[in-house]
């Protein structure tokens, strides 16, 4: 091969690299491992983690331990889907293109919206993306966040905001929920408001009133929603939201220490040309046969460059595909049942734990906050010593909540699990 190239050594292939920037040492990386040794090494690392199969966990706060069915694993192991890239060449990629089209349809059905992209990085970055859409649609440069929107989401929006030329304002929660009048007042000159349903505390927000308050003053209402709540809770599109966004993990992805997962972003048809990232559209081939293709690409960075709606190229297709398989496995009735089961188990847990609720007057979905009477971190430490992770310490994000614990359930937590939690938390 060297002779065909016309060089005498591998070294000569690199002759264009100036000697001053050549690396002549040995990389300080630990020695190579055989496959068998590699597996052993990683098994040892994995064994140091308390995963939700080993510890009875009530952690949620944005990432949830819902059941992932076997068909999801089976589909994701198909090598063609696993190892393809972005479907630039439609004739080579009809399968993945159709899957994305079906995913877009599922997200639109869940959220009551007309357009979904092919997915975003996660539930936090899609919020920043949505702010960029709102800025361009309204020409305004303020963003209003409900304080009861997840802290990870708020932090990411605040990091992106200066580059977008956006000012971020937060509206505090009142006893666990957002007040529509207060939100509407803050939204007066804002591009958008983002609220979460159910919110970070698990509380059901007066979402239709929040959306109406924003619409009244010309700010785009953006609902950050849990996909698994949408069998029982109203779709954002039905109560006037302009965009619906969220973390897709709960629907079909493992927790995976926070990623990779998929974020979803869907909007009314009016904003299709402002949407970030890939979108798949239906068309026909030269014979008139149905075909799918990446479309509306003039929005994107590879054509519009510095004027693009986003810099995104990589999305999260494989994880979004997992979401599609999961939602297809559930079906509409299954989706409703998961939501009902979560609410039922959560209600049983509230009752069974018998601890004072942080927000006693609110309706909740699959999470609720309790007061544990002493620093929550201590309670977590003690409970973990007994093999139970009792939940998330709200002190991590909220002042004055030192003794507040956010308890999360999914359909994987049984009444017997709840009884065990009650035992561990008993004073």
């Amino acid at each position, binding site marked *: 091969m060297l002779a065909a190239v016309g060089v005498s050594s591998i070294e000569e292939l690199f002759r264009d690299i100036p000697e001053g920037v050549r690396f002549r040492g040995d990389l300080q990386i630990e020695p190579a491992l055989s496959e068998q040794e590699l597996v052993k090494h990683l098994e040892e690392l994995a064994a140091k983690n308390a995963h939700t199969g080993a510890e009875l966990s009530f952690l949620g706060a944005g990432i949830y331990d819902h059941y992932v069915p076997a068909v999801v694993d089976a589909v994701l192991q198909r090598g063609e889907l696993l190892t393809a890239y972005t479907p630039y060449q439609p004739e080579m990629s009809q399968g993945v293109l159709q899957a994305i089209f079906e995913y877009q349809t599922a997200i639109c059905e869940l959220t009551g919206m007309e357009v979904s992209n092919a997915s975003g990085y996660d539930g936090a970055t899609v919020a920043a993306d949505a702010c960029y859409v709102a800025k361009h649609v309204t020409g305004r440069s303020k963003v209003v966040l409900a304080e009861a929107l997840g802290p990870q989401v708020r932090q990411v929006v605040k990091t992106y905001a200066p580059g977008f030329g956006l000012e971020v304002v937060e509206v505090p929660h009142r006893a666990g929920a957002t007040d529509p009048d207060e939100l509407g007042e803050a939204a007066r000159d804002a591009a958008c408001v983002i609220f979460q349903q159910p919110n970070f505390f698990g509380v059901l927000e007066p979402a239709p009133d929040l959306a109406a308050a924003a619409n009244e003053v010309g700010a785009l209402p953006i609902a950050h929603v849990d996909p698994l709540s949408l069998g029982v809770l109203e779709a954002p599109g039905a109560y006037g939201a302009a965009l619906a966004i969220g973390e897709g993990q709960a629907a079909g992805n493992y927790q995976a220490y926070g990623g990779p997962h998929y974020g979803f972003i869907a909007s009314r048809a009016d904003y299709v*040309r402002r949407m970030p990232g890939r979108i798949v559209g239906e068309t026909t081939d030269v014979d008139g046969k149905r075909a799918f293709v990446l*479309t509306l*690409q*003039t929005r994107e960075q590879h*054509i*519009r460059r510095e*004027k693009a709606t986003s810099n995104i190229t990589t999305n999260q297709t494989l994880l979004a595909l997992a979401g599609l398989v999961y939602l297809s496995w559930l079906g509409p009735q299954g989706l409703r049942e998961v939501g009902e089961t979560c609410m039922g188990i959560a209600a049983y847990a509230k009752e069974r734990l018998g601890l004072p609720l942080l927000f006693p007057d609110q309706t909740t979905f699959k999470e609720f906050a309790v007061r544990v009477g002493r620093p929550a971190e201590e309670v977590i430490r003690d409970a973990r010593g007994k093999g139970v992770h009792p939940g998330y310490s709200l002190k991590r994000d909220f002042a004055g909540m030192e003794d507040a614990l956010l308890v999360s359930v999914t359909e994987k937590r049984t009444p017997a699990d709840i009884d065990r939690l009650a035992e561990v938390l008993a004073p």
Partner: protein
Amino acid sequence: MAAAESYPDDLRYHSEHDWARIEGDEAVLGVTWFAQDALGELVHYEPPEDGSDVSRGASYGEVESVKAVSDVIAPLSGTIVAVNTKVVDEPETVNTDPYGEGWLVRIKLSTPSEVDELMDADAYRKFVAEQ
């Protein structure tokens, strides 16, 4: 079907491949055959707002094909008095009839003397031949 190449004698031309038809103190603006041919079939026209000001040499709108997006440059300064909604609905009109039904906007001229700085059809034909 796409139109055949032509550069009518009654129009004035700008080097960014835009044309102007002067009608009293108003002008009708569009893009030339050369521009639409370079872009391919148009799929979107993002027009300016009625009543907004345009200035010579600056962008007043965008046209898109599936592979490219292009600013539309104003050959003359003025105020938008009409937007061609037919092109908004059927952007390919620009490909089939760039100088007729495919016009983009009508403006009221603010600086009529700018007309003298535009090319006539002969000069533009020569300019295109060099591209």
